[in-house]
């Protein structure tokens, strides 16, 4: 059974639609409401998700780890992480899990930068964002040795065994690099799959500012060194 983990912070406006699409495809969905002050939990519940609530905001990394721990407890065979802001497409979940089912990989990572032009999806991505993501890819190759084309894509799939090995300790946004580190450290086999990422007006407003990259970098460096 596939469990989709959706960390959400004040996403009540779009979360319902995101969860409905996933549920309609037969996936089990757990939304981790990271201390939202809007109707995020109600919207998630209405759409058919299990809702876990963080009493206070702890950040996306913390919410992912909570959702993964819960999904493992519920007997998930495959765990998919999925953003709550409507940037990901529910139909990509099956493509992501396919290499796991085939036994080719322990982890599958979504990428915006691979695939044939027809499926290569970074529609509407601002130019500055492209440059920062390219830098992040170079940095990751040096820091963790993971050869990936898209380091900060929220769409990922894990086998049960791989998810159980994950231990996300960077509570905020630097978890993306931390997950890659742990994949390399545990010697997990990973594969990249092209996925769609929609850049809507809403996602741009809700998403990280490009400047936040600096904070994420600092958080990651300190986290690695204080381990």
């Amino acid at each position, binding site marked *: 059974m596939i469990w989709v983990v959706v960390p959400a912070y004040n996403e009540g406006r779009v979360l319902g639609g995101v969860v409905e699409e996933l549920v309609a495809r037969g996936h089990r969905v757990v939304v*981790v409401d990271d201390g939202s002050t809007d109707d995020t939990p109600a919207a998630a*519940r209405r759409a058919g998700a*299990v*809702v*876990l*609530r*963080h*009493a*206070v905001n*702890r950040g996306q990394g*913390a919410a992912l*780890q*909570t959702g993964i*721990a*819960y999904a493992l*407890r519920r007997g998930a065979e495959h765990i998919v992480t999925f953003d709550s802001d409507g940037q990901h497409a529910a139909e990509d979940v099956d493509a992501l899990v396919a290499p796991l089912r085939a036994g080719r990989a322990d982890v599958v990572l979504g990428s915006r930068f691979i695939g044939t032009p027809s499926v290569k999806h970074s529609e509407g991505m601002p130019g500055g964002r492209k440059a920062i993501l390219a830098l992040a890819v170079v940095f990751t190759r040096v820091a963790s040795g993971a050869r990936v084309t898209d380091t900060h894509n929220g769409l990922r799939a894990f086998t049960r065994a791989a998810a159980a090995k994950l231990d996300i*300790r960077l*509570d905020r946004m630097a978890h993306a690099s931390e997950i890659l580190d742990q994949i390399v450290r545990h010697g997990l086999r990973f594969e990249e799959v092209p996925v769609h990422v929609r850049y809507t007006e809403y996602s741009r407003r809700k998403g990280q500012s490009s400047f936040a990259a600096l904070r994420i970098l600092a958080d990651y460096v300190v986290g690695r060194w*204080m381990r």
Partner: protein
Amino acid sequence: MTSFQWIAFAVLGVSFVITLTLTVRRRIAPRVGFAWGMLWIAAAVAIARPELTATIARALGIGRGTDLVLYVAILAMVFGFFAVYVRMRRIESDLTKIVRELAIRNADEE
């Protein structure tokens, strides 16, 4: 004795008594109480005998005694900030564990 020395001794004396009281009453750990007590004594010595810090400073190749005290104070503060930062990160990570445990425990029953 200068008036500055009188004031400084009064403040340091009160600090020392407070530290001693807290330590005896086990409100702070003996180790911590000892460290603070030593700090107050060191400050009192430096104020009573300024030439002492000057001697140590010259031995270390630092011009004046005040400079030595300044450098030591800055180092102590940087160390203090670092210790607080490390502790804060630990508390944050503990907080996350508690929040996670609660969230999973209170999960919607299905």
